[in-house]
């Protein structure tokens, strides 16, 4: 049982470290264009907002915040340094379930679904499928449903299922291991402070770690709906489709690329479909804004805005207002200014 605890805890931290690294350094070099027909025009007036939404969505499927938080999905930005990410929070609950399942060694005749009280209130019910009791292995899966589950300052609700495959090595913060996780979110929400994030959709997560802070990861999925509310009011409701993320970390240098189509309700005049493509992989030191990299957001009529990182504080927006491929207008702004738009 003790060994199981270590395995599961280390596994969570391990994935956390790998994803942090993946978001900052490493060069994926993957800038495969996945241009999709878009339905909204990008102009001088909305280009900064469009770029801000693209960056925010990119952060939603990459990492932001502290080294200890793993985010693939939406980051609930409460302004608190230690805000928990979607995957990290989800996996922590799953590992708790795996550790605590009292019925693991009970024969099946009737079948049981156990519920577990959460640290500060509420509960999680879980169904576990393990080939070998107490040991995570390929083919295992966990399905859980949270009901007002309060862990510290975070409240979880909704359903999450995770399947594990192609596991090689022992998951841990400094061990060499690799594996794939298939996640499915069903009205899964994380709330902290005045903000709440709601997620629906699928996600495939693949990790290959060579050692401590030396890892590569990729994320992909068909559809991921991400909704952010503040004080009960929905401020963002977007869906990412045909999305992908690749990244790597080497020491504290993170490199990543993201590609997706986003639709939904943005904080801009035109709510439509935008295609986001990383044209130059982003690079950044862990915890800071990227100092290198570029992404292009394409709207209707092939209008576009290209965001280029000038350094870890400043960015340049090149706006093509008529879709002829030439820059019509350039706006200089900052990472912080873009973040403040959301």
């Amino acid at each position: 049982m003790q060994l199981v605890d270590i395995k599961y805890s280390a596994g969570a931290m391990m994935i956390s470290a790998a994803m942090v690294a993946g978001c900052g350094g490493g060069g994926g070099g993957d800038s495969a264009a996945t241009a999709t027909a878009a339905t909204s025009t990008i102009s001088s007036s909305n280009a900064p907002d469009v770029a801000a939404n693209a960056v925010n969505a990119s952060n939603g499927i990459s990492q932001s915040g502290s080294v200890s938080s793993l985010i693939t999905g939406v980051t609930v930005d409460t302004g608190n340094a230690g805000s928990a990410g979607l995957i990290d929070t989800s996996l922590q609950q799953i590992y708790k379930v795996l550790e605590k399942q009292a019925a693991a060694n009970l024969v099946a005749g009737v079948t049981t679904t156990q519920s577990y009280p959460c640290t500060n209130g509420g509960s999680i019910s879980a169904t576990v499928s393990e080939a070998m009791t107490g040991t995570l292995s390929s083919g295992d899966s966990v399905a859980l449903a949270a009901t007002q589950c309060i862990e510290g300052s975070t409240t979880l609700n909704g359903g999450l299922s995770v399947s594990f495959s192609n596991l090689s090595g022992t998951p841990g913060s400094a061990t060499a291991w690799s594996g794939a996780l298939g996640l499915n979110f069903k009205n899964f929400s994380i709330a902290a402070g005045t903000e709440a994030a709601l997620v629906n959709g699928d996600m495939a997560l693949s990790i290959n770690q060579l050692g401590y802070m030396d890892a590569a990861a990729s994320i992909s999925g068909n559809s991921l709906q991400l909704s952010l509310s503040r004080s009960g009011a929905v401020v963002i409701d977007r869906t990412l489709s045909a999305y992908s993320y690749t990244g790597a970390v080497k020491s504290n240098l993170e490199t990543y690329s993201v590609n997706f189509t986003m639709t939904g309700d943005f904080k801009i005049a035109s709510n439509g479909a935008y295609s986001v493509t990383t044209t130059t992989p982003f690079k950044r030191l862990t915890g800071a804004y990227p100092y290198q990299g570029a992404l292009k957001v394409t709207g209707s009529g092939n209008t576009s805005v290209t965001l280029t990182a000038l350094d870890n504080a400043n960015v340049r927006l090149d706006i093509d207002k008529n879709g002829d491929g030439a820059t019509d207008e350039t706006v200089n702004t900052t990472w912080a200014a873009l973040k403040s738009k959301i």
Partner: protein
Amino acid sequence: MQEVAGSGKRLVEERGWLPGLELAATYASDHWRFRIKGETYRNDLAYDGQLQNGAAFSTSTGTVQNRLAFEIERQINDKLILLAGVELDRWQRRIQGSGSVLGLNENYRSTRLLLGAESAILKTSYCDVSTKALLVIAQPEQLHVSFGNQLFDDAELETRSATGLRLEADFVPVGAPDMVFSLGFDTLRIGRSNDAVLKKNGLAAGFVSQPEHRRNAFVMRMRYQF
């Protein structure tokens, strides 16, 4: 017996021989027969299944099946008899734990309506052959579950109504008309129960249910009538 998940995946299979004893008393009057019959079978069956988390596990299940039936028969002609009856079925499963694996005890009670017919189909110089077919209409089983090491509080469940079939062929030797040799097949498929609250020390700890299960049996009987 098989237990099957909603996806159709087999969860548990128990199989083996269940030797038993049957006693019946019949009162015949004119074209009517009234019968009370008791049966008991018991043995350990091989359990090929899994733990609650899906890990494969094999053991044995101590099994006892008891039945008490009240039957009425009406002879229509020299070849055809109509039957109706009520049967009380009691089924005990003692799934054995092993090492760190905890066992499970289940007690099922159900009431069934029997409707059918018996027909004499063959007379030879050696034996007379008749066949019987019964429709078995079962009320939901009442299931009482006890968990090994009192892992959870005992639970009560109710399964689903079910309809099954019971077929039998009887062979009566010409030289020994008091003996009846029978071959038969029973089948009954019971749907998954609703979820019941699983408790530990009186506090809710989750949910428990009985999966869909299928009870099939090939039967061989030898009866002596006196």
